[in-house]
């Protein structure tokens, strides 16, 4: 049972306070918390669950905003954290992001949302489609409307009936003149390449994201050509479990609008689309560094937005780096980013240069880890393919769209 939720700005200021139960939590807890996280260095390093002298604190940080929840009683920690994540998601969905200005400008909406999301310390409704029916987002359209009609209320007049129906995620009877449904396979490749250039770990985390704008009460089935490659799946509550168990078919009544239908994992991939070959030699206080980046196995689509970033070790006093393709920037915190874009046809991109070590150091002892970033549109690297999407009753003017993309998640190349 959560007793209080605070939203703190990146300077530790309390932007919002929502007491949830009769046991009020004094604001001084925030000051305690902030001192604590300052003493930890940066908030990124402080634990998500800590114990203050009076309360247990759960915190998550999103874009500099700390969501802090307090409790005095034992509760499942993951539940508190999941809930805070959900609050952050809903807010960023409503406000188009979370930052200090957005929250301060819209604090009434934030209060309204929290009011519906949690009552007496227990989470209530966190389903975005239902919330949106109760509290209209402050979007451009509603602003225009309020100017035109003079009705500034952002609260809809009707109560969501979804809460009472057997498909709580779907509002009652949405109507569209043209019926559209889009399915996106979005995959992230996580990989570790060790010092010897071996691929130690390579797996894909994928999501099936949908955007459904369908009239009435559609019943959909989505099937894959090769579902057996999926390691483990997590489903949106709308997915029926039995059809998946027996025939690996996703059968569901979708929520309205955008949502995540399922997430999955594909393990033990043998190959990455790109390689990174770093080399460092150091001798009497200077290091020569050279990094080659290229395509290992052509995925068949263009690899875009290639970047390579790494943190220069503390013992490096200055760096002189240049590349034969793309741009290299070094920030004051010694983060070095090499923006490559696409791989040119005629040459292999190469970053080279020298690092000067602090005086007294002969060789480099701490080595950087390179983080590779890339994006490939039009292909799911796991090899997962959608076979078909069927509707039980086909509405008029139906359009179905499919897309896929893969990007690098945590792609570490160690030196």
């Amino acid at each position: 049972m959560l007793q209080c939720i605070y939203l703190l700005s990146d300077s530790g200021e309390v932007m919002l306070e929502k007491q949830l139960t009769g046991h009020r939590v004094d604001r001084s807890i925030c000051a305690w918390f902030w001192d604590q996280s300052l003493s930890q260095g940066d908030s990124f390093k402080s634990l998500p669950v800590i114990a203050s002298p009076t309360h247990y604190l759960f915190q998550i940080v999103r874009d500099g905003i700390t969501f802090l929840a307090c409790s005095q009683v034992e509760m499942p920690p993951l539940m508190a954290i999941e809930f805070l994540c959900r609050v952050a998601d809903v807010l960023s969905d409503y406000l188009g992001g979370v930052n200090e200005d957005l929250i301060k400008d819209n604090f009434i909406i934030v209060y309204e949302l929290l009011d519906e999301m949690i009552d007496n310390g227990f989470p209530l409704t966190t389903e975005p489609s239902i919330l949106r029916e109760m509290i209209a987002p402050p979007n451009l359209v509603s602003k225009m409307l309020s100017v035109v009609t003079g009705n500034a209320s952002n609260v809809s007049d009707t109560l969501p009936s979804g809460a009472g129906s057997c498909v709580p995620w779907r509002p009652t009877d949405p109507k569209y003149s043209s019926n559209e449904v889009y399915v996106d396979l979005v995959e992230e490749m996580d990989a570790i390449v060790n010092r010897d250039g071996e691929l130690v770990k390579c797996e894909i985390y994928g999501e099936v994201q949908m955007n459904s704008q369908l009239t009435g009460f559609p019943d959909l089935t989505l099937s894959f050509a090769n579902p057996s490659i999926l390691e483990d799946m997590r489903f949106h509550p709308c997915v029926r479990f039995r059809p998946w168990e027996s025939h690996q078919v996703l059968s569901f009544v979708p929520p309205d609008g955008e949502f995540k239908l399922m997430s999955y994992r594909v393990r033990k991939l043998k190959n990455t689309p790109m390689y990174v070959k770093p080399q460092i030699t150091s001798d009497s206080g200077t290091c020569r560094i050279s990094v080659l980046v290229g395509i290992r196995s052509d995925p068949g689509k263009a690899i875009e937005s290639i970047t390579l970033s790494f943190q220069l070790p503390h013992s490096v006093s200055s760096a002189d780096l240049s590349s034969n393709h793309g741009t290299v920037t070094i920030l004051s915190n010694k983060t070095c980013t090499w923006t490559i874009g696409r791989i040119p046809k005629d040459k292999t991109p190469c970053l080279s240069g020298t690092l000067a070590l602090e005086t007294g150091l002969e060789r480099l002892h701490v080595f950087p880890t390179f983080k590779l970033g890339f994006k490939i549109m039009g292909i799911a690297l796991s090899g997962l393919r959608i076979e078909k999407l069927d509707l039980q009753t086909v509405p008029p003017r139906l359009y179905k769209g499919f897309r896929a993309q893969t990007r690098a998640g945590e792609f570490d190349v160690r030196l």
Partner: protein
Amino acid sequence: MAPPAASQRYPSPSQPSGKSEVSDLKTQLRQLAGSRAPGVDDSKRDLYKKVISYMTIGIDVSSVFGEMVMCSATSDIVLKKMCYLYVGNYAKGNPDLSLLTINFLQRDCKDEDPMIRGLALRSLCSLRVPNLVEYLVGPLGSGLKDNNSYVRTIAVTGVLKLYHISPSTCIDADFPPTLKSLMLHDSDAQVVANCLSALQEIWSIEASHSEEACREKESLLSKPVIYYFLNRIKDFNEWAQCLILELAVKYVPSDSNDIFDIMNLLEDRLQHANGAVVLATVKVFLQLTLSMTDVHQQVYERIKSPLLTLVSSGSPEQSYAILSHLHLLVVRAPFIFATDYKHFYCQYNEPSYVKKLKLEMLTAVANESNTYEIVTELCEYAANVDIAIARESIRAVGKIALQQYDVNAIVDRLLQFLEMEKDYVTAETLVLVKDLLRKYPQWSHDCISVVGGISSKNIQEPKGKAALIWMLGEYAQDMSDAPYILENLIENWEEEHSAEVRLHLLTAAMKCFFKRAPETQKALGTALAAGVADFHQDVHDRALFYYRVLQYDVHVAERVVSPPKQAVSVFADTQSSEIKDRIFDEFNSLSVIYQKPSYMFTDKEHRGPFEFSDELGNISITPEASSDIVPAQQYEANDKDLLLGIDEKDDNKGLSSNNGSAYSAPSLENSSNITSQMQELAISGPATSATTPQSSFGFDDLLGLGLSTAPAPTPSPPLLKLNPRAALDPGAFQQKWRQLPLSLTQECSVNPQGIAALTVPQSLIRHMQSHSIHCIASGGQSPNFKFFFFAQKESEPSNYLAECIINTSSAKAQIKVKADEQSTSQAFTTVFETALSKFGMP
């Protein structure tokens, strides 16, 4: 660590200081209050917004309460919401003014818009002003009957709020039975879920003084109710599902079919997108199958994949919470995760708290087949930018080496670390090499040649330096220049700031002296002189002791300081298995995150609802049981020890062995103990050290949990010996009572003196305690008394639980015994009966 005083530092200079702005607002609001001019709502809205933004940044705007209420007559719902928010925040401080709000809130409760009805009802219940409760009953009653589910949902929670303000009003209005019927019959899932949550809370609190509430609370755990919820679990939202799953954990299945039915019903919950639901389901599965070893194993296999997916899919905060639970499972059943070790590889961008957990798991899952890969991976982290993680990973390598897998390759790796010439890497590695040598003396030659090449000047950290000095002393005969290095160090005695290092220098000089006397004599003399003059008590005492024992007899001195050693077979675990089990029982709670059971960090009133009454009915907990619970503050100091935990303690262990006492005393944990230890040795010689007193685990002693670290059992005694200081908390007792099969039922008569003495339960409790049988709960009135006892074997943590019902009119006692070890339950029963038969005897 006291909470800081309420701070007003937040309003920055750019923000209004408050006073004048608030009084401005007051006048403006007053002007608008009666106005019905068009557009007045807009101006009101702006003013309200200002008031609330002041409230949010911490300015006290309670002075406009009256004006806010006067302005609240409006049909605009946003205005209403802002007003409710304001009123909710300040009502408690202004009980008299709050009366003003009742009127308009009550009116809103009858509004035709269900949303306004709901919101008004919620605000009404959130005022929390005790003298206004009479106004709540009516609106709540009609709210519970409202035809809109939104209003009913809010009304149900409102009942719980009312209960917290005034339990008697809530009970007198007969709300709990209404909630119960709603729970079982309402069509809306959220209403049902809120009823469940409210009833659980109300009945748990009521159960302490009402038998009826107690029965009602138990009825929630009856088979029909549980199945009613589980069968329709998919209708509930994710949070309500968590609630139901938590209820299901407490359910005691009737047979194995029951267990399988529940698991089948819940299996797809493991696929849920919400991690909290998955973890709650995992808990149900684990608890249900505790008594079925094979199935329990299969459960691990089944839950592995969903948990691993959760780890890689969420935010770092979510990953952390899941990893903490996974950590618990991995440590319990490492072999099941042995092939998944790659999941625990650290990615560069992960926060260090995640990396740290992963390192621990890598250590836990290492076995013959994967050690090489894991150690290779860990070695890469040693060159990591994050120094704390680099250190941790070196320690992890060392721990794996101590687990006896593929030591050969690991020793090579460790020695390679020494070549990295990073001070902290070297220091950590030296500590590990030292521990390794204590376990595997056969590696000494390889290690010594490398260690000998390290210049002590390059090591700044006391722990590393101490480890090096220990090796110099221990292997003086193999390192040609050991005496000279020591001599060098001793000459710089004054510059050595760490007492730990100085202690080690003394011991090492002694050891070196026994092996190479001519070369060391001078250095030892200098060291002893410097030591005796040292301002640090321990150093002084040790130097003096060495000096005297040398004076007495050099051979005795050698026997004391440097006796022949046996290799350490297992380093003591920092956490007893009982504590680990306890944490496991508290799966999906904060205990897992903190890696210690809840009794160590929560005080009694903040623990979850007291659940002991399920089996024991209406009986009280004796002071014996609750005295185990030490207030939280007292724990803080110990908790810190625990948090430092593993690494620090390992080091200390290494240290304590240096005083030359036999190796079989890993229980010496503190360097401060050494001196007292030395004195003991001086009197009785090294032989006694084999039976050193119990460990210095602070918390163990505090709680009387000494059993887990008790000395090895003597050959089984003819008669069962019980531990006089046994401890078991009610939760663990209940758990065990539920899980263990009944081993014995016995009926015996109680002697008349005993019956005469048994006017109150306490008399028997005290008597049994003198026989090392402790009472955990007791109750009843003449003629029927009921007791729950427990006892533990002296030598090992094996528990006996007994239920004893004594009827004083028939002078009969009925005893039911459950035991961890079935074989000895007869022996225990004999002890128990003997003890009982002596009751009342002078």
